[in-house]
């Protein structure tokens, strides 16, 4: 064990002293999580340039309601209540008289205006929208813009347009206009967390409003942090071992240490590097969340699980990577083996969204119990606001411990043979033979 620690210490000191480690600590989270973080930070920093929407109202009864709604919005919604600074764009409705002789030509002209950025979009309201008839085309409302699928204005328009349509229908039915307002009053449902007992006061703790930070961001961050740490600590072992073999450093060391000690020294060095990296991120994350007033959402109960899963994951992946590296003779061999060896790490990433969405679903449960996927997917499930059955993380942990022991054992056997083998292409059949027979 002493020799393993000496080797691990050397690996650790070599790794953390490099510029790439320090740069990696900064770059990696920006690379992996930057998009999401930027989205949350910048989601309110929208383009405040006014948006002109041309309205071709063939019904003749909606455009005015849209104008009224837009004016009301522009007066009350687009300025910060404290600073009075404009924080959102104004919507300017420009009513255009429909050209009955050549409607297609008119729509082409409006499209050109959108492309030339003179207007943001145009809306075409069908003739029969109050009383849809046999021809569905006459009762449609179409929103034309350069990217209407993700255009927020389209969603905003739906409300005043439908509101006016329902009002007009109610009037035709002789319903009191006052009653129409009550009839059309829409109430959103607020998503809340569960009520819990406050350990300090003994009283009840109010349920918090459910937010995307808790539901998505925390599982996402924890999963990516682990992915990043394994990528940083375990994956490079393949090329590192291959290089040490090719540079004949390995045989010099094998005079002092056994192949297993050599392999474990490297893996343990990787674990130390990842523990350093993750500690920096976790402590940094806790301080930042506390400063921003999000201390309630810090998942303290998940952090020990995170660390245990991460250590086991690096042991499992690292020993396999080191074993494969020992079988390689050049960088081509290493490249061809690296991708398949990384699959157990990459595959869970594809299931991230379905698992976050339904942490108790059959897919999430079964995938998270497959040992190579357990560290990432079980962690995501545990980090989600939903409570998962207690036995599942324990079963997952037992599975991954068994799988890690097998990986280290097989990796050690492959390593022992591979590290001295020169000029032999690493085939799967050969590796299996080495793992079984040694």
């Amino acid at each position, binding site marked *: 064990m002493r020799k393993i620690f*000496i080797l691990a210490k050397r690996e650790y000191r*070599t790794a953390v002293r490099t510029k790439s480690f320090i740069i990696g600590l900064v770059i990696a989270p920006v690379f992996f999580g930057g998009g999401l973080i930027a989205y949350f930070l910048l989601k309110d920093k929208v383009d405040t340039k006014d948006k002109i929407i041309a309205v071709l109202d063939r019904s003749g009864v909606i455009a005015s309601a849209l104008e009224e709604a837009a004016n009301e919005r522009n007066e009350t919604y687009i300025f910060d209540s404290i600073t009075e600074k404009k924080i959102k764009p104004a919507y300017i409705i420009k009513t255009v008289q429909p050209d009955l002789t050549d409607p297609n030509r008119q729509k082409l002209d409006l499209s050109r205006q959108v492309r030339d950025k003179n207007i943001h979009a145009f809306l075409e309201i069908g003739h029969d929208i109050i009383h849809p008839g046999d021809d569905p085309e006459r009762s449609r409302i179409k929103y034309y813009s350069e990217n209407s699928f993700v255009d927020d204005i389209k969603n905003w328009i739906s409300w005043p347009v439908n509101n006016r349509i329902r009002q007009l229908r109610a009037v035709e039915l002789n319903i009191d206009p006052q009653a129409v307002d009550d009839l059309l009053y829409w109430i959103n449902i607020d998503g809340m967390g569960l009520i819990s007992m406050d350990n300090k006061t003994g009283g009840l703790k109010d349920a918090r409003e459910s937010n995307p930070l808790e539901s998505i961001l925390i599982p996402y961050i924890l999963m990516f942090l682990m992915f990043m740490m394994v990528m940083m600590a375990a994956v490079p072992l393949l090329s590192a071992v291959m290089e*040490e073999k090719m540079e*004949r450093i390995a*045989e*010099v060391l094998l*005079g002092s*240490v056994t192949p297993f000690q050599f392999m474990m020294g490297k893996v343990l060095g990787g674990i130390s590097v990842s523990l350093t990296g993750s500690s920096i991120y976790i402590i940094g994350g806790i301080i930042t969340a506390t400063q921003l007033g999000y201390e309630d959402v810090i998942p303290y109960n998940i952090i020990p699980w995170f660390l245990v899963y991460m250590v086991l994951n690096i042991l499992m992946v690292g020993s396999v990577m080191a074993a494969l590296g020992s079988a390689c003779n050049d960088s081509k061999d290493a490249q061809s083996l690296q991708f398949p060896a990384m699959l157990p790490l990459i595959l869970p990433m594809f299931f991230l969204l379905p698992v976050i969405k339904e942490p108790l679903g059959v897919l999430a449960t079964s995938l998270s119990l497959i040992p190579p996927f357990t560290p990432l997917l079980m962690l995501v499930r545990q980090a989600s606001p939903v409570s998962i059955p207690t036995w599942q993380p324990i079963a997952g942990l037992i599975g991954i411990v068994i799988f890690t022991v097998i990986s280290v054992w097989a990796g050690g056997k492959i390593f022992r043979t591979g590290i001295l083998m020169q000029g032999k292409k690493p085939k799967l059949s050969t590796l299996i033979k080495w793992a079984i027979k040694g």
Partner: protein
Amino acid sequence: MQQKQIMIVIIAEYYLNMNTIELQGISKSFEKHKAVDDLTLHVPKGSIYGFIGPNGSGKTTTIRMIMNILYPDSGSIKLFGTTYRGSRLDNIGYLPEERGLYKKMKVKELLSFHGQLKNGKNINNEIKYWLDKLDLQKWSNKKVETLSKGMSQKLQFIATIIDRPDLVILDEPFSGLDPVNADIIRSAVLELQENGTTVVFSTHDMNMAEKMCDFIFMIYKGKKVLDGTLSSIQDKYGNDTIKIQTEDGMSVLNNIEGIEKVTDFGRMQELKINENTDTQKILAAVMANTKVNKFEIAKPSLNDIFIRIAAPEKEEGNNA
């Protein structure tokens, strides 16, 4: 009481005279190729034992088996009188034939790392001593990658012996070294021996083997073909060699009865004579044709013995 003393003396004698390495009938095959075949060898404590043999004859495999890096298919290996399998002994230093060092580490740091791996004592003092002795002191804080090839080899040697092991195994320690550095390493090896270390080294430098080794072992096609002191090996071949220097060189040595083979070194020639040939008749035959400046009857050199064993196969191979 007297019996007890005798027992102590016997036990002490046993340990003092114990062989450091005992190989008993070891064999090792790689798929169909038999690299080492039923090899038995005893390396006495405190000796310098030279391993010689052509490339691919089994030297490195034998050394790797002694080091426990490879396991023999059959036979047994004892180090310091005990069988170890799978473990590494801290009191053995090993310098493999193909060796590398961590290039980004500083010289002192690297030696300290190797010393710690061997659980060495007084590592800092040893580092200073050996860096001074091998003339590398001023490089102690430089990175390994800045060293020349010769300096790197000296550093590798120091890393091997930094903890003053009881047994040092050096695979081709002199290859690629200039004569000055080779001499420095040679003197360091002799110093280790004087302090009781057993040294095993493989080499292709027959002169170095002749000068340094107490015992020489030659392996050929996996089998032991020579084992003993230089003089005992030479005795087996007898005085069948004549070193001759004449006015007319090689041209006058052809077609003389009793000469089996002539090796031309330019200014002098080496003759291998047939068994029971009268050397005086050969001298007379040469003198009849030219003036003889030097005529020496000698035992064959180690180099010559090596070639006699290993060359026939190559010649056959060339003819094939």
